[in-house]
């Protein structure tokens, strides 16, 4: 058991007991932080690990939320069944839109993904297919139901969201260390060298996109069932900017960094509510200052170490 495990365990224990000491308002703030952390993790996979400048993540989040809302309100499908469904819908959407643009580099990709999130928002406002309810959105989405136990109160949602986050952290941690995750890191560091070493960069980038979108779609499901009402205003370009800053400020490619970023971006504005009108001003200035003084984020990822295999030791002894 090393230092990191202790920190993780203390943090997890603190989170588990925190609803007891907090009023409902702050529990709800923690719920938002949890949702932002899930979205940040899913974007981190695309932006932090693969190094793709993706600023349209709110589009995938929106697809997940709207698929949940439409299927739930029209067909009455249970929310929990729709968790994978909305993830898959977002993933398919991502695969379709990302396929022609995945080869674009840096800034071009950034601006196209902004275009995608704007087109999705405008499509939602214009009541596309007559399903999305236009600017008013969709209301009357039901709550998730666990074998007869309905998740309704903020405290219930707290455990639901943070459990989902914990599972996400575990899975993303595994993925990071896998052959697939290392290939993505390689693409980020040097795309050309990666390709030269036999990594199919286009394919890997697309898979990273699709996987990130899948997770964002599931987050959309949670959001829809938490709010019970969704409208296009929740899925703007600025929402994407928030996810982007969560990843960059916290430390791109670092899971603790992303969670810290979610606390800062979604939590700090709540703490400074007294300065309501000036807080976004300070937020903007802080973003600039942060990039000047610590451009790799607050908790930049630590370079990973891999143990050499036994055969190397034998080799060395010989």
């Amino acid at each position, binding site marked *: 058991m090393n230092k990191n495990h202790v920190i993780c365990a203390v943090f997890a224990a603190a989170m588990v007991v925190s609803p007891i000491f907090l009023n409902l308002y702050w529990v709800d703030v923690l719920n938002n932080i949890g949702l932002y952390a899930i979205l940040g993790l899913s974007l981190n996979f695309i932006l932090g690990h693969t190094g793709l*400048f993706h600023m349209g993540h709110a589009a995938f989040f929106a697809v997940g939320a709207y698929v949940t809302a439409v299927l739930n309100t029209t067909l009455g499908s249970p929310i929990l069944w729709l968790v994978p469904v909305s993830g898959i819908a977002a993933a398919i959407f991502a695969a379709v839109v990302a396929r*022609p*643009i995945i080869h*674009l580099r*840096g*800034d*071009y990709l*950034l*601006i*196209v993904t*902004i*275009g*995608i999130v*704007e*087109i999705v928002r*405008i*499509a939602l*406002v*214009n009541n596309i297919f007559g399903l999305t309810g236009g600017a008013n959105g969709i209301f009357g989405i039901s709550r998730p139901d666990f074998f007869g136990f309905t998740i309704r109160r903020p405290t219930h949602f707290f455990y639901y969201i943070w459990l989902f986050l914990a599972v996400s952290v575990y899975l993303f941690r595994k993925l990071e260390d896998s052959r697939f995750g290392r290939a993505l890191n390689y693409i980020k560091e040097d795309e*050309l060298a990666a390709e030269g070493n036999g990594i199919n960069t286009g394919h890997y980038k697309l898979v990273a996109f699709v996987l990130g979108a899948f997770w964002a779609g599931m987050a959309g499901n949670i959001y829809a069932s938490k709010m019970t009402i969704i409208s296009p205003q929740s899925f703007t*370009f600025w929402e994407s*900017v928030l996810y*982007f*800053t969560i990843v*960059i*400020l916290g430390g*791109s490619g670092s899971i603790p960094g992303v969670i810290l970023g979610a606390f800062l971006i979604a939590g700090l504005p709540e703490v400074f509510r007294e300065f309501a*009108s*000036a807080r*976004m*001003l300070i*937020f*903007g*200035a*802080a*973003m*600039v200052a*942060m*990039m*000047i003084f610590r*451009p*790799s984020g607050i908790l930049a990822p630590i370079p990973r170490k891999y143990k050499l295999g036994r055969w190397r030791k034998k080799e060395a002894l010989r």
Partner: protein
Amino acid sequence: MELFFQQLTNGLAVGGIYALIALGYTMVYGVLKLINFAHGDLFTIGAYLGLTLLTAMGLTDKLGLGVGILALAVMVMGLVAVVGVVLERVAYKPLRNADRLAAVVSALGASIFFQNAVMLIYGAKFRVYPHNILPKMAVNILGLEIPLIRIIILAASIVLMIALYLFVQKTKTGTAIRASAIDQGAAKLMGVNVNRVISIVFIIGPALGGVAGVMVGMYYGQINFTMGWMYGLKAFIAAILGGIGNIPGAMIGGLLLGVIEAMGAAYISIAWKDAIAFFVLILILIVRPTGLLGERVAEKV
């Protein structure tokens, strides 16, 4: 046909505004390889400064119409240029050798800062531009009644573009700007003061953006503190359409985008007006990523 020509002139006027903003993006991108996300907000600041100068100082009453508007344009250009230079010094200069992503986030932060600063100073509501500055006249061209303001905006933006084009092509400073855009290192070795070039780019770009803000105020009659980012994004699309980093490209891209948007709004659907620009963007990046006038550059390895 009436509708077609009305939309054409409307599109050209709006396109001229896009082109002026796009020039700021394309010049900064050319020299620094940075999307200056705060540029749209400099445009908003220009619009609001123009409003203050018009209402609080009553420029047009004191100086007469023609001189008043000219003075207004010059003052707005100067003031926004100061903001632009300060922006560059504070938010971009320390990041010149840093990761590209850091500069993008810094630009976004600056954009949020400016947007909220404007909101705190002027309030969150729409502000109305004084509508009686220009006489409500329409000019009759070949049987078409075209509002005077459209012609003035188009003419003014074309004059500014030609002036900029001549400046960049014919003067020594202009040559230095072009050289720094092509290869900063080589330009430095040839004795170009790249820092000075960057400062000049951050004077010209925001000045043009600021004057475009005044034009929008006069054309639509109302301004809002969030309008900058939509105009900024569209202008950036115009810059890509023409070929990013290419100055004549930004001009043509701006005018073209304005016309495409006006035609789309008239003949396809007004509700999808804002999405048309983004469809154009996706199309151009798939078909011809270098833009209309961009040269094919060998990818750096």
